[in-house]
């Protein structure tokens, strides 16, 4: 087990190192002159030179890589150029991460129980109208891109109902409850996208578990339906769900760019997008690396959770 974790962490380091190289290369190979983009079209040659210098683009790629690696270990990426000129990159990233975390965690709190419950119910009521209704509604919602759903929610909920807020970010200093109130609409939009997906994964796992002889044995032993689900079905049926959640969690952190835009929310996705727009390479580099680290941590924890749930997975992890 320990060996598995070490191996996975090693793998994560290798991936990060690889990513570091790519992130280093971005400004060097991106079309156009990054310095001109930052300094503006009318900037003097001296000014351009100065910006190029401060971007570190006059160094060799190797030196750049080394500097970036140092930044990773010291957690100091210098200052932002254009997104929030002069502010330390890390403070921007931390605040964006905090915002994303609020949204993602709230979304998970809503999505996971609802869709898992949906999956369990549809599996138990397989092929009935309940099953078909829930699954088909789920599929229909999944087909709508999250930002489109967001726009609709804005139009049909936020505009007429005062309770729902147009801005996902609460005014500074708001109480947690008010913050949650502001986040409700984006969470609903994410729920619409993910409910059908996660419910279907859970449903499939549960049907397999319910069809198994051990579930039959449990019923034959005289256990009640809730007991069978709790003791025998859950740990078997939810393994695929956990695996899916692990990979989706990483995506939710960095990938909700459009949704964050719609609700004017300063999450990581939004930050990276702005950094790309304005060629703010230090912010871009730090943001991409942060998302990568979160992605790896999320999948690793999902794997560990599965190992906890399934002794056979535990064994194969120990072997490898």
């Amino acid at each position: 087990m320990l060996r598995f974790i070490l191996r996975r962490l090693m793998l994560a380091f290798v991936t990060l190192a690889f990513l570091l190289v790519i992130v280093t290369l971005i400004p060097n190979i991106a079309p156009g002159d990054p310095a001109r983009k930052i300094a503006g079209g009318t900037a003097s040659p001296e000014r351009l030179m100065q910006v190029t210098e401060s971007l570190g683009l006059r160094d060799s790629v190797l030196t750049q890589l080394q500097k970036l690696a140092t930044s990773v270990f010291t957690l100091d990426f210098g200052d932002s150029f254009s997104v929030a000129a002069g502010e330390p990159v890390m403070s921007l990233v931390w605040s964006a991460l905090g915002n994303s975390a609020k949204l993602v965690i709230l979304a998970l709190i809503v999505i996971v129980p609802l869709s898992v419950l949906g999956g369990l119910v549809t599996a138990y009521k397989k092929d009935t109208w309940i099953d078909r209704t829930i699954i088909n509604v789920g599929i229909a919602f999944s087909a709508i891109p999250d930002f489109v759903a967001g726009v609709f929610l804005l139009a049909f909920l936020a505009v007429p109902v005062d309770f729902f807020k147009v801005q996902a970010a609460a005014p500074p200093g708001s109480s947690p409850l008010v913050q949650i109130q502001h986040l409700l609409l984006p969470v609903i939009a994410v729920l619409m996208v993910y409910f059908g997906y996660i419910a279907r994964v859970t449903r499939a796992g549960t049907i397999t578990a319910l069809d198994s002889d051990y579930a039959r044995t449990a019923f034959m032993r005289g256990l009640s339906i809730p007991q069978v689900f709790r003791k025998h079905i859950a740990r078997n049926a939810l393994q695929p769900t956990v695996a899916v959640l692990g990979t989706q969690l990483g995506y939710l952190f960095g990938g909700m760019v459009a949704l964050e835009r719609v609700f004017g929310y300063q999450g990581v996705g939004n930050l990276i997008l702005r950094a790309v727009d304005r060629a703010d390479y230090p912010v871009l580099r730090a943001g991409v690396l942060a998302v990568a680290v979160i992605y790896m941590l999320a999948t690793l924890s999902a794997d560990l959770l599965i190992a906890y749930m399934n002794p056979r997975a535990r064994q194969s992890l120990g072997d490898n």
Partner: protein
Amino acid sequence: MTVTESHTPEPADLAAAPALAVDGLEMSYVVRGTPRKILRGVTFEVRQGEAYGLVGESGCGKSTTAYAALRYLPSNGVIDAGRVLSGGEELTAMSAIELRKFRAERASMVFQDPVQAVNPVLKIGTQVAEAFQVMGQSKAEARVSALAALERVHIAAPESVMERYPHQLSGGMLQRVVIAMGLACDPTLLVLDEPTTGLDATVEAEVLDLVRELRSELNSAILLIAHNLGVIRTMCDRVGVMYAGRIVEEGTVAEVFDNPSHPYTKGLLNSIPRRGLRKTDSELFSIPGAAPPIGASLPNCTFVDRCPIATDLCRTDVPPIVQRSDGHWTRCHHVDRLDEVPEPEKVTVKYDIGTEQVIGVEGVSKTFRQRGRDVPALVGVNLGFAEGETLGLVGESGSGKSTLAKTMLGVHAPDEGGAITLRGRTMADKATSRIEESVRAISMVFQNPDSALNRAWTVRRILHRSVVKLTGVKGAAADRRVEEIAEGMQLSTRHLDMRPRQLSGGLKQRVAIARAFAGDPEVVVCDEPTSALDVSVQAAILNLLARLQNEERSSYLFISHDIGVVRYLADRIAVMYLGRIMEIGATQTMFEGVNHPYTEALLSAVPSVDGVAENRIPLTGSIPSPANPPPGCVFHTRCHRAIAGLCEVTEPELVELSPGHSIKCHLTVEQLNEPIKADVVATLS
């Protein structure tokens, strides 16, 4: 569901009432809104302390009846009529809570595959203890009870088993665990649904011994479902023969098996090779046609379409129950004409086995590398196949049978020094580098035709491809050849345009055999080709294989765990253990005595349908891991005749006892002939 009959019985009533009474049970499965009849009035009783067997082909309703005995119905199962009672209480009228209490405290069920029947994510101890917790014991009490329960089923080192997970135990051990759980409540009714079907013959024998022993302790009633008639014969007091959702004959096992009184029972019994029948004596009887599908509307005698002695009366009138002797009855109009049921055809033409060796396995070893360790799966195997000869290959799982087959086929390359030869010429190791003639020479029939055939293709396309690939014939000639082969397999042209899922198991296996014969092979490797099939279908396939062999003069490597089938079809038998041939000889010789101790134990483990009480030699423990074979003779750890100081030191050579009969054993013929010490023999009553 009459109110008057669901009264609470008096205690005295309870003791007298049968542990299970199924009364006129009719059931349907609702498929896409249409109810399809599966049970058409099943009536039988299992008395306290009695073991009752149900036999019949798949789809006849055996398992449905077993589940109905505990009122466990699939969500689309509907009881149309009839009642199920246990100890005088009506299960069919119980509330959900009463039913749960009944299942927790008075009834248990053991399923076919023990690996599936235990929860893979929970420790054995937790699962066994749960069976006791359901009955109201505390966690601590339940643990103590669980340990006792595991001891009762003779599991070695029960404390450590409690802490293990299912995947860390063997199939035989798991089935013991499942039985221990089933016995937790001292059930009045124990339902066993094919409890030994997936297990090796030796493990099967152990599990059956255990059930037999526990039966005498428990006094619980047993309902045993099995398609293996030998298991029913040795385990049960009475047996019911089911056909198309009805019991057509019932009586004591001796009466029913020795004096079958329904054409269906006669057909079933004639389709298995009994009393040492060989392919040279007679064909096997195969009941014509196939069992009707679930939900088919059937004439009054459900068997009429497949019955050799049916008359118009059978279509119009429900056959009466005819008493044959005390407690033995049959549902047939024509009991007086049972003699007219045709006997299997005697084989008159004799075909000789060729003398020239066609395919040779010469000094073949196969060592796999696993995590840096050598795992010898085959060790110095020598075999030869003459033209038209069948070599039976037997041994427990893990003995290397399939590895040998795969090495012959060129899936695995043998270790340096070994070779597969075709008429004296060494073939390339891997099938991919073999020349066309060599590839054609060896073909394979798999156990499960479902996964062996491409489900998206029609039968014609499947056969066509093999013909083109293997013989190079193209176009109209290939089409003709496909039809020829199909005809030889008794497949009609109608079948050629169907896809595998539209065919029954027997027909699918015919397609698989047809494909194997497409390239006119020298040797066909048959890996358990009939073990997934019903006995009457098995009979047809065995007949087909025997006939094809005579016509095509091809040889078979016939791998099977069913000794009776091997005895029927094989000319010679090889016994494998841990990758080594322990004994090889002509079938006749092998069954006449002087065997390797391992063969002796294997042969004694077979439950015989003829009911001859035999002394079983238990094979203790499971087969050792090939990664870590015991020193000396690999079998000495489980041998009942091992000589201390010799067998665990030196590995014996394969010595020829008589021409063609060799064994790998230190013991002399005299020593092998000595009767076995009484304490190692499990005596069956």
